[in-house]
């Protein structure tokens, strides 16, 4: 079963302390919301978990293996996948090629045709099968978000971090993304979802982490966290 442990993560940029003693553990297919005001350190934490940044101090373990010393591709291969705040589709490659990359990267001897069937299934699940041979740059912003989610399905990680999956998305596509998260989570994959969409994050997540200027100020059941006075003061507003 999946176990991810972040131990006392600190991250400084010059004199700025972006993360201060952040520790938490994810056990099994949890569905976790990560919230905090702008500049709270959410994306920095994601970048540390994914290997793009090294922590100033602290460690990250996944299934007993230390992953904070690994490069991002090593973390991906260890079973952690992510999306980015700003969509990062491979724009001058076709939708199908976008999907084949993670599948091929995970298996050293695989050939493209081994994954074309799976890619088709993923595209149908995400309702963009008709776009398979189009260049990713031809897709709308929302469709590119779906493509990013599709790439994660092809990567097939144990844990998925989604950075602002609902930002700027049409309600109909939002439904697809919502369905994606719940169905994939039900299949046994853990999620950490960063979002400013409070309604969605409270409905969707079963555990909430709250960051405030680098401090993890709350970690628990969303309904309990919602009533936490420190969270109210820092983020949700006293009157909520």
């Amino acid at each position, binding site marked *: 079963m999946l176990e991810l442990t972040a131990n006392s993560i600190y991250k400084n940029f010059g004199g700025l302390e972006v993360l201060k003693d952040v520790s938490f553990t994810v056990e099994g297919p949890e569905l976790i919301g990560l919230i905090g005001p702008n500049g709270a350190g959410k994306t920095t934490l994601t970048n540390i978990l*994914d*290997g*793009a940044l090294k922590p100033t101090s602290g460690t990250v373990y996944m299934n007993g293996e230390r992953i904070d010393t690994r*490069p*991002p*591709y090593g973390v*991906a*291969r260890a079973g952690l*996948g*992510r999306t*980015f705040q700003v969509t*990062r*589709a*491979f*724009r*001058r*490659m076709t939708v199908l*090629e976008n999907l*084949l*990359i*993670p599948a*091929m*990267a*995970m298996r050293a001897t*695989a050939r*493209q045709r081994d994954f074309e069937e799976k890619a088709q299934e993923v595209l149908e699940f995400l309702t963009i*099968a*008709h*776009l398979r*041979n*189009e260049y990713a740059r031809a897709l709308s912003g929302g469709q590119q978000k779906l493509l990013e989610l599709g*790439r994660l399905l092809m*990567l097939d990680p144990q844990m998925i971090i989604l950075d602002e999956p609902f930002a700027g998305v049409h309600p109909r596509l939002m439904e697809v993304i919502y369905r994606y998260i719940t169905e994939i989570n039900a299949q046994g994959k853990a999620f950490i979802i960063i979002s400013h969409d409070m309604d969605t994050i409270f409905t969707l997540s079963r555990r909430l982490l709250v960051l405030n200027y680098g401090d993890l100020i709350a970690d628990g059941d969303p309904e309990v966290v919602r009533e936490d006075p420190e969270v109210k003061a820092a983020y949700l507003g006293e009157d909520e």
Partner: protein
Amino acid sequence: MNPAALYRVSGSIAVIILVLLPLASSEMGGVGPFVLNSYFMHLAITAFFYAILASSWSLLAGYAGQFSFGHMAFMAIGGYTSGLIGKFIRFTTAPSELCTDIPLPGNWWLVVLNIRRVGTIDESCLDMAKAETLPAGTLIVFPPVWASIAMGLVMGAVFGLLVGWLVLRLRSTYLALFTIGFSEILRASISAEIPITEGQSGLELVPLFPAGIMGFSSTSKIPPYYAMLFLFLFAMALMTWLAGSRFGLFVRAIREDEEAAAALGVNIVRYKVLVFVVTSTLAAAAGALQGHYIGIITPNTLIILQMSLVIAMAVIGGLENIYTASVGAIIITFVLELLRTNVEIGPILIDMTLWRLVFFGLLLMLTLRFQRNGLLFPILERISRGGVAEETVSIRVEEEELVEDEAGVDVEAEEEERAASPGNSK
């Protein structure tokens, strides 16, 4: 005919034409209006040389997004390595005592020459050894040309590995500046080290086939034509295979977004270094072969204008495809030569040897402004991706019809159910 089959057929026809072309040369006794003289054959060899450089640069810059200006430096490394081996290495059956002697199996010695100035004449230690220490009847053998060229390839790969590793974290402008710096350092070193490289005078290389081959003399254009054509076809086959494999997929992903590619499990360090190694080896191979064909290599091959020419060839043909880049290089090599003919407009004589470069620069500017993907690449795109838009629409229409049909079936079933229910029987 589907695009893949069209490529195969047109590619095969092109290869057959290129292989049979020398039959029409004057050397082979070609007759009729299309006799190809030795000047044409020389142009063809040069065109293949530039095609290897432009297509391998397109793999590096167009596919992998590594805008290196050091490609001609790798070409020169191949040429100079091969030339220097020819200049400084000999095999003998006895130690020279005056040079650096390295024993080899089978009673042979690898002798590294050093050049000494005796009075006003440069004389190698081996020349002196012949007079002083070497026993009579000692065999002195030049290294085979193919072995020198192979060493050129190895050096190209080694420097490719080194530069690829050094520029791992550099992007766009910084990468361009670094590689210009590398190229200029190499050019300055070659120019400065006159005792080794002959400086601006140029390093002489033995002919590709010193003793001739299959009845052709060492100065014939036919054997070098086939040698360069073979290298060109081999390079294209290798790059086609690479571009169609996981390598091609990953380097294009790196070009698009390095971080995203890494987050999806792509080992970006490995593939960035690998693309430098592969392309610099191909450039070195072309340089070594061309050096032996021309018979001399000078530091001027490293000037930025030469690099710009290769870049312009790839850009005008189509940077993001090895075929369009190579065809662009071949066409431009010939066009630049054809444009050498002076033009008279009334009393004004236009010296095209100078003005042709102006027209060439203008073509490059117009291509960049109006046809950024090159002049040939859009044609290839139209052939290979012509049906994609229609396919997208037809799949979408099919899916929509399917959804409507399913909805229709549901409505009909519901109506039937309602009609059959006891409440409706009255």
